[in-house]
Structure formats: C-alpha cells, structure tokens
C-alpha cells in the first residue's frame, strides 16, 4: 500500500502544480455571481431577504458540489494521459509497481483532492449559513455530502477506467455523458415504445444510478408568504414577485431509497475501476 499512497501524494502535488487553484478561483467567482441577487437585492422585507440569502447558500453548496464532481472527472480523465504524454510513466513502470497500484494511487489522489475541495466549500457554506442564522437539516446535509463523495468516487473512477483505453478528451467526454445518462434511462424506461423501453432496461444495467443533488433541502428556509399579505404563491395582484413565487418548495428526501442508490453507485464505481485495472494491466505502454 505504501506505493499506492506514494502515487496518491504525487497526484496531489501534480494537481497543485497544474495550478488547479485557478479553477477554484473561477468556481468561487461563479458562485458569487450566482448568489449576487440574493446578497444585494432588497425584497422589501427583511425576513424575505434573509430567507433568500439562506437559500442562496444551499444553492451555492449545490453548485460547488457539482463543480467538485466535474473537477474529479477532468482529473480522472487526464490521469493516465498526462503521464503518457509527459512520458513520465516509463520510469514509473520500469519500477516494481503493479499497474493496479498505480491506478489505485491515481484514483485516491484525485478523490482526496476533490473531497478536500468539497470539504472546504462546505465549511465556507456552514460559516456563511451560520452567520445568516440558517437552520441546517443535518440528515439532508449528511445524505447530500455522501451522494457527492460517492459521485466523485464513481465518476473519477469511470474517467480513469476510460482513460486506460482512450485519450483524455474522449474519456472525460464519455464520463460526462454517462453522468447525464440516468435521465435518459428513466425516460426510456417510461416510454410506451417497446424498443425504447427495452433499450432503457439494457441501459439501466450498464448505467449507474448517478448523482441526485439534495442540497436544496439542507437549509430549512420556507418562503415567508405572510410577508405578502397572506396571498400564498399567488402573484396576480402584484404582491409576490414572480421569481419568488417560482421558488421550489423544500423537497422531501426518501432516505432509504437514497441509501440504496448510494450503495449501487459504490458498486458501479468498484466494477468500473476493476475493469480499468484489468485493461491497464494488459495494455502495452506505447509512447509516441
């Protein structure tokens, strides 16, 4: 295992060297942009403004988590490709290191970095949320965090596995497509067309359940419609601004179903990763 940790540490150093921090800064900029209306707009009600700010925090957590998953896919897809193109892989594989150790080290390093990024984002979210007196629902926080960590694991594992058979760009693109596939699978499964339905059933086995965000449920911040004279969501008489009326109600989470999805995702991650190890072990290391 010492070699695995060594490779993981090397990945970590490499990521920092590749100035991934610039990506972080860009992501933070994006979050600030996203939260600008809630931070600066005066909604005519102190209570409403606080609620909107609290909701902006949960929204920012959602965006940040998605960015961490995207970062993991990007790093996973380039894990092998970057070593091959830099030709550093030759001196590594000329050592007594097994290919699966190398791949596992890469996977661990990427996950560590992505989870650390996620952790830092959550920490900032908590600090800001606490400052705004947000009422965090810790069950929802727990399941959301687990979903994100597993998604990081799953999609970085898929990207790494794909990068053993194809270039970084294709591996990344395929991993992203796979991340969007669950929606298509559901659509096909629900289809009345029998061919589409069969395709859906087949794809249901091949495609992991994927990531569902529940960050909108992490902070209890119901819209105070009383502030608009008790008109509920009705904005016809000009009381409730349309974009507030369109705010989604707080979702309910089926924790049992989500736990099962988590487990399935972990299983798929393991299968994809083992497949990647198998391919890399058999693959020749041909450099241009």
């Amino acid at each position, binding site marked *: 295992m010492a070699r695995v940790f060594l490779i993981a540490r090397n990945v970590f150093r490499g990521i920092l*060297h590749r100035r991934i921090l610039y990506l972080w800064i860009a992501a933070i900029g994006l979050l600030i942009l996203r939260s600008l209306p809630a931070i600066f707009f005066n909604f005519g009600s102190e209570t409403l403004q606080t609620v909107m700010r609290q909701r902006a925090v949960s929204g920012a957590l959602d965006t940040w988590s998605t960015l961490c998953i995207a970062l993991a896919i990007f790093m996973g897809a380039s894990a092998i490709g970057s070593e091959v193109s830099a030709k550093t892989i030759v*001196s590594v594989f000329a050592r007594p290191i097994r290919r699966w150790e190398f791949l596992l080290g890469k996977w661990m390093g990427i996950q560590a970095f992505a989870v650390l990024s996620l952790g830092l984002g959550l920490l900032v979210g908590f600090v800001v949320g606490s400052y705004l007196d947000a009422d965090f629902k810790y069950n929802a926080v727990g399941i959301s965090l687990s979903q994100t960590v597993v998604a990081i694991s799953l999609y970085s594992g898929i990207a790494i596995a794909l990068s053993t058979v194809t270039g970084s760009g294709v591996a990344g693109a395929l991993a992203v497509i796979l991340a969007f596939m669950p929606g298509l699978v559901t659509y096909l499964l629900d289809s009345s067309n029998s061919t589409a339905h069969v395709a859906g059933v087949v794809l249901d086995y091949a495609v992991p359940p994927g990531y569902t965000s529940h960050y909108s449920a992490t902070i209890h911040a119901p819209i105070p419609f009383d502030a608009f004279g008790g008109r509920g969501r009705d904005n016809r008489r000009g009381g409730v601004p349309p974009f507030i009326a369109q705010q989604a109600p707080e979702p309910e989470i089926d924790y049992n179903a989500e736990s099962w999805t988590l487990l399935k995702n972990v299983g798929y991650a393991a299968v994809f990763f083992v497949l990647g190890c198998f391919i890399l072990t058999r693959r020749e*290391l041909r450099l241009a």
Partner: protein
Amino acid sequence: MTQAVIEIDELTKSYRRGLRRRTVFAVQRLSINVQAASIVAFVGPNGAGKTTTIQTVLGLLKPDSGTVRLFGETTHTGLLKRVGYQPEVFHTYPFYTANEVLRYYGQLSGMSSGELDQAIPSLLDRMGLVDAADRKAGTFSKGMTQRLGLAQALLHDPELLILDEPTSGLDPEGRRLVLEIIRGEKARGRTVFLSSHILSDVERTCDEVFMIRKGEIVYTDRLSNFSGQDQQWEVEVLGWNSTAREALVGMNPTFLTEAEERAVLLCSGELKRALLRRLTDLPVEIGSVQRHRGATLEDVYMKFVGRG
C-alpha cells in the same frame, strides 16, 4: 559458466501504422544473450528497434512471438526491483526537486527512508548534482536531466542496468563521468546493457556489441577483437633476408608483408620489445614501428549497418 542476465530468443514485435493499419516490424527474430558482469552494447541507427527491444525486456511492450527472460525468469513486476533503467530522454515531474525525484523513484523501488537518506546524497555527489539537490527538476538543463536519469537508475543498486543512450546530450566531462560510472558498475559485478550511437564510447567501454538494423541483429562480436582493446604493433624491417627469418622463428610474429628486402611484422606489445631487441642484433634495419590499425567498430558498423 556465467548466468545469462538477459535472454532474448527469437523476439518479434510489430506495430500497426497509418490509416490502413499496415504492419511494421520493429524487431524480427532477434536473439541476444547478456552474460552477468559484462557491459553489452546495442548499436544501431534510429528506428532500428533498440528502444522497442529494451521496452520489451522491461515488460512495457508485449512480444508478438519469442521469449524474453530476465535473470532466468519471464519478465514480471517483481524482477524490476533488480533492474535500473535510464530512458533515452529522462522525463520526470517538473515540480519535484532532484532530491524529491530520487526519493520518489527510490520509494517506488521499495527503498526505506533510511536507505534513501544514505544513498541520495552520495549519488547526487557522484553525479555532480549536489548544488542542484534542492532545485526543481523542471529547471534542469538537458545534461543535468540525463545525469539525474542515471542517478535514479543507479539508486536502488540494481544488478542489471539498462541504459538507453546514456551519453546523449552530455558534454565531454559528463560523458566521461557516465562512462566511468558504467565501468565502475561492471567492476562491482553489475551487468550493463546499453544502447548507443556513439561508437567510440562503445569501443572504450563495452565487452560485447550487438549491431541491429531494421529490427534484426546483423553483427555481433566481442570488443576485444577490435584494435582499441589489445593493441597490436606493426614493425617494418628493411634488408629482410632468410637469416633474419630464421632468427625469429621461435617468436612466431605474424607477417603482414614479406617480400625481398622488406617485411612488415605484426605483434603484440609484449612481443614487440623482444622482437626489436633481436632485430638490432641482426644485419637488418628497422624501418618503422607503428600501431596497427585493424578494423574499427566504425568500419564494422558502416559495413553492416551503414548501408541504406
């Protein structure tokens, strides 16, 4: 009989190139045996199949047919602990310092921290990289990178060193240093298998040479058969006659030329002294004494490999 460290038997390796996936043979029916405690050179032009052969020995490439054995076993990951490899151009992580590069590769080879603490400073000193120990490898010159590459190959004290063009890109001082290290490793009982374009280096350093052309071995010989190793001398004798011939019978010199009034004798350095002493007592004149220039490695290379 000494053990063969590398045994390559009838190795064939091909690639598919281009849109039509045309088969190109990088190596064809290549057989090589490298004995322990020897320096063996693998010589050939670019694209002859040297690196392909080396990478197959290391298990990075898989042969189409034929066998490759290291230390008597089919190549597997565990055996690589006994091998040090320096690629033709050493590419490493630019964010590591020289110290960290060696520590990283050493740990991958299974060395402990204590062993690395001992080995790294002395190796950096040997390579003339002490002053650059804490400099990022990305800032190194080509020559420094090559020396760092050799250092990582030597780090875990391997029994077999595989060096791909170890002196390319080095200045004369660096080249000399590398050749001294290679000879030193042989003196310590290590085996060195190196590929090179620089024939003078090969002639000065190696015990045996394999010449490869278009993936096939076209010539193999021991370097001691070339002029650079056991120096022979040519002694020109004027006024040559039968008396002189009879006087030299017991010494058995080789006659390069024997004509009336003139003969050119070929002899070793030891025989040369005795021969000259004997000739001064005879009624003949010594015309000249010069080093014999036999076929050089370059001559052989041009003959077997050099032709298009």
